[in-house]
C-alpha cells in the first residue's frame, strides 16, 4: 500500500516536473527556431507616415497646417437598422439623415461605403462614443489654410496625396513632408502593438515647420487695397510687394484677385500664378531712376545738371521721343526735375550721354535680366536686350520700354537705392524648424554686390523725394508726417499677339520707400489695365500711400518733423480739450486738398463739411452717406466734382 502511494506520488511529481521543465525550456532557455517563429508571427515592420509641417508668418500666425481627419465609412451588410443609424449620425455630421440612409441603402450589397470624408476630431469622438456596429473610420490627413485667400498665390496648395503642387508647398515639399518612420513592433494575438525592449511610442513624426518673413497683417492690408483698386478702376489685376529695407525680408507679396486655398481647383490656373515673380512686364517710368543712378555713378551728370528737353519732342534715330503727357513741353530741366516731372526726353538724353555699354552693365548689376535668388517655382528673369543697342532702343529702355522686369526685381533694385547702394538677395523663408530633432535652419539675406556708393545712393534718395513734392508726379503717394521717395510709372501694355502695344491699355505703377531719410519699407504696386484713369500718379500712388501709412503705423515709426507747421504745442495742462479741438482744426486746414470722411453723416452734415471746398457737389440717393467719389483721404486737386452717395 505504502509502495503504491509512493509510486503514484513519484509519478505525479515526475509529470509535474516534466511539465515545469518543459515550460522552463520554452520560456527561459533560448531557442533559435522558436525565436524565429515568434518573430515571424508577432513582429511586424510598420511604416508611419509623417504629418506635414505647418507654414507660419513671421509672428507665428498659422497660414497652412495639417490636422488628422477621420473619414467615416459604413458596412451596409452589418447595419441592422439604417434609418436609426442615420438619425443618430446625421446631427453630428450636420447632414440630412435621408441622405445618409439612402447612401447605405444604395450600397446595401457592398461591404464598404463612404458616409463622409475627413470629418473633424470632435465629430469623430462623438460618433465613436455611439459605438454603432457597422461604422468604421479611416485616418487621413487634411491640409487646412485658415486664412483662406490670404497669400494664396505664394503659399500654393497640396494634392489629395498630400504632396505640394504649387507655390511654397511645392518648393519646400521635402522639408514640409518630413520623413516616414519605419517602426519594428511586436503584436499580440489581437494584432495590438506592444512595446519592444522597454519603450517605443507610436507617434506620427512631423515634417518641419516653415516660418516665413511675411507679416500677415500687412499682407492682408495690401491685398485689400489692391482689390479695392481693381473694383474702383475696373482693372484686370494688380500686384504689390513690401520689402524690409534693412533686412531684405519680404513682408508682403500680393496678387489680386486672390482665391480660396481650401478650394484651389475651382479657379482658373491663370489666377493661381504668383505674378509678382512669374510675370515680367515693361516697368515704364519706374526705371528712370536707374539711368540717373548709372549716370551719377559714371560721373556723367550731377543732380543740378541742366538738360535741354526740346519742348517735349526729341528726334533719335529717325523716331520722335515724346513726353507721356502731351501738355508737357519742358525746355530746360535739371536732372532732379527730370525725375520729378518724369520727362522721357530728359532721361533719353541722359541715357545717350551715358552710352548703352555702361547702362546695360548697370542694369544687370542692379539685378535686371537675372534671377533674384529667391528660388521660387516659375520665377522669371525678365529680359534685358543684348548689346549692341541702337540709339532709339537706348532711349526707350531709359524710360522703361523695350525691357521687361518682374515686380520683385524692381522692388529689389529700389531696395538697393534705399539701403545705401547694395544689391541684396530677397528672402521669403525666415527659418525652418524640425519639431522632432529641434534642428533650426535660419536664413538671412546675402549681399550680392555694391552698385552705388553710399553718397550716390543718398543723392538719388533725395532726388526721388522731390517726386512726391508738390508739382511732382508722385504727390498722391505722400503720407503726412513722413517723407516719401519714389517714382510713378505708366507703361503701355505689350500686344503679344500682333506686336507693338495695345491701344489704351496701361500698367500703372509706383515704386518707392518710406521714410525717405531712413528707409524702412520699400513698396512696389502695379495695377494692370485700369480703365477711366491710368496714370501711375492717379491709380498706383494712392495705393502706395495707404499701404505705406499702415506699415509705418504698425511698425511704430515716429513721424519726422518736416517743418514747424507740423508741430503743435500742448498747453501745460494736458487734459485741456481746447488743444485737441485746435489740433482738429489745424488738421482740417492742412488737409483742405483732401476729401474729408463723410461716412455715416446725414446730407446736412455732409454739406456742412464740404462748405470749404470749391468743388461742385452731386448728391445721389437719400438717407446717410455710405460712399463718396473721390474716397475720403484722396486728393481733391484732380476732381472737378464730388459725388456723394446716400442710402
Amino acid at each position, binding site marked *: 500500500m505504502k509502495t503504491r502511494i509512493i509510486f503514484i506520488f513519484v509519478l505525479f511529481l515526475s509529470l509535474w516536473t516534466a511539465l515545469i521543465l518543459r515550460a522552463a525550456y520554452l520560456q527561459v532557455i533560448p531557442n533559435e527556431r522558436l525565436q524565429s517563429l515568434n518573430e515571424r508571427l508577432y513582429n511586424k515592420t510598420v511604416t508611419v507616415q509623417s504629418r506635414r509641417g505647418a507654414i507660419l508668418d513671421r509672428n507665428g500666425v498659422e497660414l497652412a497646417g495639417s490636422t488628422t481627419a477621420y473619414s467615416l465609412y459604413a458596412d451596409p451588410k452589418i447595419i441592422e437598422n439604417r434609418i436609426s443609424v442615420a438619425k443618430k449620425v446625421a446631427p453630428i455630421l450636420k447632414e440630412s439623415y435621408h441622405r445618409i440612409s439612402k447612401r447605405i441603402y444604395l450600397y446595401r450589397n457592398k461591404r464598404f461605403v463612404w458616409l463622409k470624408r475627413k470629418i473633424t476630431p470632435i465629430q469623430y469622438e462623438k460618433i465613436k462614443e455611439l459605438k454603432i456596429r457597422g461604422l468604421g473610420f479611416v485616418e487621413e490627413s487634411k491640409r487646412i489654410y485658415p486664412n483662406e485667400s490670404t497669400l494664396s498665390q505664394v503659399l500654393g496648395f497640396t494634392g489629395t496625396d498630400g504632396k505640394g503642387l504649387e507655390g511654397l508647398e511645392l518648393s519646400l515639399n521635402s522639408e514640409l513632408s518630413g520623413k516616414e518612420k519605419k517602426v519594428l513592433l511586436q503584436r499580440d494575438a489581437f494584432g495590438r502593438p506592444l*512595446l519592444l525592449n522597454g519603450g517605443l*511610442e507610436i507617434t506620427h513624426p512631423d515634417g518641419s515647420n516653415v516660418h516665413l518673413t511675411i507679416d500677415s497683417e500687412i499682407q*492682408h492690408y495690401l491685398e485689400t487695397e489692391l482689390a479695392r483698386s481693381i473694383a474702383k478702376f475696373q482693372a484686370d489685376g494688380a500686384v504689390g510687394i513690401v520689402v524690409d529695407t534693412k533686412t531684405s525680408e519680404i513682408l508682403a507679396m500680393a496678387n489680386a484677385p486672390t482665391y480660396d486655398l481650401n478650394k484651389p481647383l475651382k479657379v482658373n490656373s491663370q489666377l493661381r500664378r504668383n505674378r509678382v515673380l512669374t510675370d515680367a512686364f515693361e516697368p515704364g517710368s519706374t526705371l528712370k531712376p536707374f539711368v540717373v543712378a548709372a549716370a551719377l555713378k559714371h560721373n556723367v551728370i550731377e543732380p543740378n545738371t541742366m538738360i535741354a528737353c526740346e519742348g517735349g519732342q526729341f528726334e533719335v534715330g529717325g523716331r520722335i521721343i515724346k513726353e507721356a503727357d502731351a501738355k508737357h513741353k519742358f525746355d530746360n530741366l535739371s536732372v532732379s526735375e527730370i525725375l520729378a516731372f518724369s520727362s522721357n526726353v530728359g532721361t533719353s538724353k541722359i541715357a545717350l550721354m551715358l552710352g548703352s555699354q555702361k547702362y546695360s552693365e548697370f542694369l544687370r548689376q542692379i539685378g535686371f535680366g537675372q534671377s533674384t535668388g529667391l528660388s521660387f517655382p516659375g520665377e522669371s528673369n525678365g529680359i534685358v536686350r543684348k548689346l549692341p543697342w541702337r540709339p532709339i532702343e537706348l532711349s526707350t529702355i531709359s524710360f522703361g520700354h523695350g525691357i521687361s522686369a518682374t515686380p520683385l526685381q524692381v522692388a529689389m533694385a529700389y531696395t538697393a537705392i534705399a539701403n545705401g547702394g547694395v544689391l541684396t538677395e530677397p528672402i521669403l523663408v525666415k527659418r525652418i524648424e524640425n519639431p522632432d530633432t529641434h534642428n533650426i535652419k535660419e536664413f538671412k539675406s546675402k549681399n550680392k554686390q555694391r552698385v552705388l556708393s553710399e553718397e550716390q545712393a543718398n543723392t538719388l534718395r533725395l532726388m526721388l523725394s522731390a517726386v512726391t513734392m508738390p508739382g511732382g508726379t508722385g504727390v498722391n503717394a505722400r*503720407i*503726412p*508726417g513722413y517723407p516719401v521717395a519714389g517714382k510713378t510709372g505708366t507703361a503701355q501694355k505689350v500686344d503679344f499677339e500682333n506686336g507693338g502695344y495695345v491701344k489704351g491699355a496701361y500698367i500703372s505703377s509706383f515704386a518707392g520707400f518710406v521714410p525717405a531719410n531712413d528707409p524702412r519699407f520699400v513698396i512696389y504696386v502695379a495695377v494692370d489695365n485700369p480703365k477711366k484713369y491710368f496714370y501711375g500718379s492717379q491709380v498706383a500712388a494712392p495705393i502706395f500711400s495707404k499701404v505705406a501709412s499702415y506699415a509705418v503705423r504698425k511698425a511704430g515709426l515716429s513721424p519726422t518733423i518736416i517743418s514747424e507747421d507740423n508741430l*503743435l504745442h500742448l498747453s501745460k495742462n494736458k487734459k485741456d480739450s481746447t488743444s485737441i479741438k485746435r489740433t482738429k482744426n489745424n488738421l482740417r486746414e492742412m488737409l483742405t486738398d483732401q476729401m474729408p470722411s463723410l461716412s455715416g453723416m446725414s446730407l446736412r452734415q455732409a454739406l456742412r463739411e464740404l462748405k470749404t471746398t470749391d468743388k461742385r457737389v452731386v448728391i445721389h440717393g437719400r438717407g446717410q452717406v455710405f460712399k463718396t467719389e473721390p474716397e475720403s483721404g484722396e486728393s481733391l486737386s484732380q476732381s472737378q466734382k464730388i459725388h456723394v452717395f446716400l442710402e
Partner: protein
Amino acid sequence: MAAKKEKRFNPVLNLLIIILTMFTIVFTKMEIRRIAYNVLKISDQYKKRHDIYRYNMLEYAKITQPERVRNYALSRLTMTEAQKGQIIHISNDNLLVAQ
C-alpha cells in the same frame, strides 16, 4: 535527528525555489506586457489630444484671420477705418501731425 530532517527537506526546498523563480520570471513578463498595453493606451490618448490641439489651433487661426476681425469690427463693434489725418502721434510735449 534535526540534521537528518534538514537533509530530507533540502531537495523539496530547492524545488520550491526553482518553481517560485520560474513563476516570478513569467509574472514579470506578464507585467511588462500589461505595462505595454497601458503605454499603448496612453499614447493613443496623447495622439487624440494632440490631434484636437492641432484642430483647435487651426480653428483659432481661422477666427483671428485679419479679414474676419476687420468685418467684425466694422459690423458688430461699429468701428470705422482710420482716415488720413485722423491719427495723431504724440511725441514729448508736442503734437506731431501725422497720419
